[in-house]
């Protein structure tokens, strides 16, 4: 790698660190559920579970993982030293504030659409029910398919048994 490139990367890392230090970023959980782990990787011990819409403060970002401080009442019971902190994969988070059903009435006045996403807006359960009825579709196997759940721990166990690199999840 050329010196210039190293310098350039160093500059961006510093700038990113400075930006993070200046304003700790708030992010929201954008998936049904996710886990907070002790280390940045799917092999990390689970400290707590987060649900759709939960807000976290992002303290650091490493290889696709965000170090977050947990919202009140979510700190794990596993007695970790850095209580109230852990790692969440960035694909489970969004910059937008997710507003759940309750108290969403005046959201349009308080923020622009780029900053807020309303849970249950647009394509939702109601729309699905209507679509299903209009097209006489059977969702039985879609639901059954969704019931095939493999946890990260099971998937990693499977990879290890096959002589594969279970750390692959941490990029």
């Amino acid at each position, binding site marked *: 790698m*050329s010196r210039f490139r190293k310098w350039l990367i160093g500059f961006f890392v510093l700038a990113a660190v400075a930006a993070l230090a200046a304003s700790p970023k708030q992010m929201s959980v*954008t998936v049904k559920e996710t886990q907070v782990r002790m280390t940045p990787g799917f092999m990390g011990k689970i400290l707590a579970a987060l649900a759709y819409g939960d807000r976290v403060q992002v303290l650091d970002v490493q290889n696709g993982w965000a170090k977050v401080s947990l919202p009140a009442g979510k700190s794990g019971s596993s007695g970790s030293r850095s209580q109230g902190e852990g790692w969440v994969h960035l694909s489970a988070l969004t910059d937008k504030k997710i507003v759940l059903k309750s108290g969403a009435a005046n959201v349009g006045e308080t923020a622009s659409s780029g900053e807020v996403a309303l849970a249950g*807006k*647009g*394509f939702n359960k109601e729309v699905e029910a*209507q679509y299903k009825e209009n097209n006489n579709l059977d969702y039985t*196997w879609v639901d059954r398919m969704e019931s095939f759940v493999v946890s*990260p721990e099971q*998937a990693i166990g499977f990879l290890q048994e096959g002589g594969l690199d279970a750390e692959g999840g941490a990029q």
Partner: protein
Amino acid sequence: MKVPFPAIALAAALPLLLLGCETLGTLSDIGVASGTITESQAASIQKSAEAVEKSFEDITPEQEYYIGRAVAAFVLDRYAPYSEEKSNDYVNLLGRGLALASDRPETFGGYHFLILDSDEINAFAAPGGLVLISRGLLRCADNEDAVAAILAHEIAHITRRHGLKAIKTSRITTALTSAAITATQTAGSEELAALTSTFQGSIADITSTLINSGYSRAQESEADLGAVTIMQRVGYNPRALVGMLAIMKKKLKPGGVDFAKTHPDPGERIKDIEKSLAGKPSPPAPPPQRKARYNTALGKI
């Protein structure tokens, strides 16, 4: 030194951005064809174009989830599921492991895999993580690494949101992207009808792409290279994708309604993949357990 090139490409792209996405796609294609810009420069222009054309990104993961369920329901209306538990468990363990190593390990409803009881060579990656693969396609794989190649290719379509990109941008209206309306789920019946009609159109855009026209050649190439990356991260042999495509090439019937219709010729795909793998070492041979579990789960698929 490589640094200035993207900058030049970007500067050159700026006036083009004003012309809109459709025109831009064509212009960058012409640029490549006439040799005035390199492929990577074209890719970076394309990227800028996508940044402007961001409406499909405003579809939240929650909405993507409902779109994916509808696409899967549409596919399952036409193909019977293969209900054999052992085989489905195996593709779910393997698929989930690969998804963990992708750039998007978490989606709203997670990744789930189902085998279709069909001799066609076909697979459907519904947005959000529902992957349907035919027995005919799995028969193109003769070991676990090759099955991993098939699943990783489908996962790559999902991480890159190729399905959502098939939705005509004109459908993505403020009804979906503006926070100011429909603050709660209690939409009126008129609004529900309008949303359902948009939904219906969006699903039709995606399913007609999956079943009739296929993704663009560039998107298929992205999914192949994405599959190679995922396989390398986990330790599968990415050359298994080449082996699988070679079997597929032999099995595909010209004029068929399956991959023959919706995917570039396997021979062309093999060439592109081999180019990206040139000079790269292969991982060690698979241990006996990996072969044994493949034989148990899919040996007779």
